[in-house]
């Protein structure tokens, strides 16, 4: 009896698979691509524990234990790149969230639909630009000889021009401004969409109760935005060890004198791989980024899950 039903099950599964054969065919290209692009490289993580030689490849290179990591952490670079990556991200998350929420709330107060549309169009423009173009724009402002700021503002006031691309101390401010400029539109749109979705009757009831505009914002809008804020912040915290390569490589024009405030894990890995041929340290840093990043995503999700289950991503 049991055998018979198992047999039947087996046959129906076979039949099922045959029925879905066209579907599997459809999925094949995507599946293969994912396998190659996302899964085949994973064994390459072992490079962090190997002395890499191009001639011997990933598998053929000799193991060298944790000496890549030891070498990485003995240099001051390791502290610098980790500090820069995390601190910049924290500032981006904090200022970006505040700015986008404020703009989204203001956008909601605009009466004319057409103006609302126009503002959205404009604040999204920086998001459409590549960081190569952005670096040209920043150069137009900050170039030492030809830059707008040195020529039209600083020298016009009678001061000596500033060599922006050689002075590391200015770059934390510059990079934060550029990042906010480029990405606040994107998150504003997300927050604005959730504000539009808030039930009107809540505000109407509040008005009847005599609540001021400010009260309505702090007691209705912000609490109802909480899930979106939490989810976006969590996504960002999960990626706190990752930096936008374009922002940190392209915008400071890879200028060596700025590394102390502009190099992050991603630019460090790039330089190790393609510029200084220091694959050992670079792959150790890349390994830490992958593994710690993974742990961070799981942890931040776990924390949110334990506090408020429905806000968790998975």
């Amino acid at each position: 009896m049991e055998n018979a039903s198992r047999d039947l099950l087996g046959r129906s599964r076979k039949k099922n698979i045959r029925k879905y054969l066209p579907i599997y065919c459809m999925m094949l290209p995507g599946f293969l691509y994912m396998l190659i692009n996302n899964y085949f490289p994973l064994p390459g993580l072992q490079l962090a524990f190997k002395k890499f030689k191009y001639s011997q490849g990933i598998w053929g290179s000799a193991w060298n234990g944790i000496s890549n990591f030891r070498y990485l952490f003995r240099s001051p670079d390791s502290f610098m790149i980790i500090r820069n990556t995390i601190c910049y991200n924290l500032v981006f998350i904090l200022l970006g969230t505040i700015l986008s929420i404020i703009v989204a709330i203001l956008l909601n107060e605009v009466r004319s639909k057409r103006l609302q549309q126009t503002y959205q169009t404009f604040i999204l423009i920086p998001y459409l630009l590549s960081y190569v173009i952005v670096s040209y724009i920043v150069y137009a402002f900050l170039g030492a000889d030809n830059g707008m700021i040195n020529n039209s503002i600083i020298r016009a006031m009678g001061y000596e021009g500033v060599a922006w691309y050689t002075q590391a101390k200015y770059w934390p401010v510059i990079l934060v401004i550029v990042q906010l400029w480029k990405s606040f539109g994107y998150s504003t749109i997300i927050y604005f969409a959730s504000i539009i979705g808030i039930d009107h009757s809540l505000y109407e009831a509040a008005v009847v109760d005599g609540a001021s505009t400010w009260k309505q914002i702090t007691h209705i809008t912000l609490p109802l935005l909480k899930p979106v804020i939490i989810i976006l912040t969590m996504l960002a915290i999960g990626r706190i060890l990752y930096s936008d390569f374009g922002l940190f490589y392209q915008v400071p024009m890879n200028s060596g004198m700025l590394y102390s405030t502009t190099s992050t894990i991603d630019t460090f890995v790039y330089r190790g791989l393609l510029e200084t041929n220091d694959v050992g340290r670079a792959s150790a840093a890349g390994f830490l980024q992958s593994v710690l990043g993974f742990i961070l995503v799981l942890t931040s999700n776990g924390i949110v899950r334990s506090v408020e289950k429905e806000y968790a991503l998975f």
Partner: protein
Amino acid sequence: MKIGGKKVSIVANVVLCLLAFSCVMPLLLLVISSFTSESTLSRNGYSFFPSQFGLDAYLYLWHTRVQLLTAYKMTFIVTTIGTLGNLVVTTLFAYGLSKKQLPGRVFLSFMVFFTMLFNGGIIPSYLMWAQVFHIKDTVWALILPNLLMNGFSVIVMRTYFTANIPAEILEAATLDGAGEWQMLAKVVLPLSSPIIATIALMSGLAYWNDWINGLYYISTHTELFTIQNFLNRLMSSTDFLMNANTNSAIADGIKVPSIGIRMAIAVIALIPIMIIYPFLQKGFVKGIVIGSVKG
């Protein structure tokens, strides 16, 4: 719903006007500088109010147009092939994942999801593409790594299919004897134009703006450079453009307007996006919202 009174609305308009202006003002500097005469640029630098406009940069670019047109052509080719490829691969994969009865669906979905949580980083990926698949200095380097499909858009699309295509319609089509390919082409796709447009937009923008693949994988065959790579190289070595054209330029007795030309090329790279953007603006907004809510 607007919650403030008229005063709040006025404040909102003023602040947003300033913000909107600050978003385009830097672009204006780029454009104005590109139309400034080279002598003014070398005297006063880039400026919003140049003392003398001029077409020096664009005239010189016209002389070196071959190089620029090649890069432009590459950008168009890569963006077109890449976006179409992305659409086909993503749609087919997401459609499969939307079949609730599909054996192995949970496993496949997890595989997609996992790619968003964990990745091997750039070094293993670079070594694989360069040493196993030998894509360095080929056009494939601009299309294949990372951009062809991503887990996020697969999941967004799958969610769209399961939420917006009524099961009854699919059943009815099956009863009529439609095969899966027919079903996809005749029933599912016509109902999915919003999500397809969204994915196409996002993918198209990613390909148009990409310079990272070129930076990693194109080193000797600079004729494969897209406009972004071209700009990238021009920034690090100012003479990139000049080297290639010195002879012809000297022959024509033209001085290289090296300050203005950078801005002019950047403007040329921007033009297509700025032309298309107003028409697609709603699509972009929708894409951002769909991506954030349903992912």
